[in-house]
């Protein structure tokens, strides 16, 4: 089981190419009707250089960097007992199809509630682009039911 000794550990890091086909698939899967997210002409008309990465998709790209099972192994968590408890994003600049984004995720906190029945792990991810510019910070909290 995860414990506080994991705090500060780098869980995974790596680069991901933002592919426009993937952005279109995400738009379809989320019922996105705004053409800015699937039609390059509409995106350009709205002032974007390419299809924009929508607000929550950074979390999806981040999952390309490491495998969920490896991450859970490192954190000593059980896939069948975890839930996503919280997710936060701080946005610093836009990301677009054609960018190569770098993700680095560290364990920010580990704590228990309800006398250990619930175990929380907080991961913090810094996202930068191919120019080294700071794109966003992600904060993801996973909870494991131990009861």
């Amino acid at each position, binding site marked *: 089981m995860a414990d506080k000794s994991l705090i500060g550990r780098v869980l995974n890091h790596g680069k991901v190419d933002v592919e426009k086909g993937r952005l279109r698939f995400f738009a*379809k899967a989320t019922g996105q009707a705004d053409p800015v997210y699937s039609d390059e002409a509409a995106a350009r008309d709205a002032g974007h250089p390419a299809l924009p990465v*929508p607000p929550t*998709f950074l979390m999806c790209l981040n999952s390309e960097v490491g495998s969920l099972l490896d991450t859970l192994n490192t954190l000593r968590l059980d*896939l069948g007992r975890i*839930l996503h408890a*919280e997710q*936060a994003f701080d*946005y610093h600049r836009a990301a677009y199809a054609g960018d190569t984004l770098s993700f680095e995720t560290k364990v920010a906190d580990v704590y228990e509630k309800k006398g250990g029945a619930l175990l929380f792990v907080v991961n913090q991810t810094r996202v930068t682009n191919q120019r080294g510019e700071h794109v966003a910070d992600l904060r993801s909290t996973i909870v494991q039911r131990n009861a």
Partner: protein
Amino acid sequence: MNKSLSHADVKVGDTLPALTLPAIGRTTLALYAGASGDHNPIHIDIDFARRSRMPDVFAHGMLSAAYVARALTDWAPQRQLRSLALRFTGITHLGHRPTCSGRVTETFEAGGERRARVELRCANQYGEDKIVGEAVLALD
């Protein structure tokens, strides 16, 4: 496409147009698993879900989070979005119809710009909250 949101357009108590989605089905979850890259079998494999003592597969929290983000970007262009913080308060099951809503709770100055804080909610057709959270947007 939506026009940019100016400080003159926004006051405390304003509500975002609610976004209501079709009922969540297995196809919804299969498509979201593929598009998001979240292949956790708890959302797509009923056998795995049952072994994990769940009655059936259930929706990815991040699917409803994407719906909440859609409600936001329908209201204001994404370039105005500064932060988004969401708490998953309940499981969205098959057959649930999510509705995302929001309300401006504060306008303030930060980072040399005028900003608005918006409280966000995603609930099912029974009024049960599945996500609560907030966003901060810059106002032109």
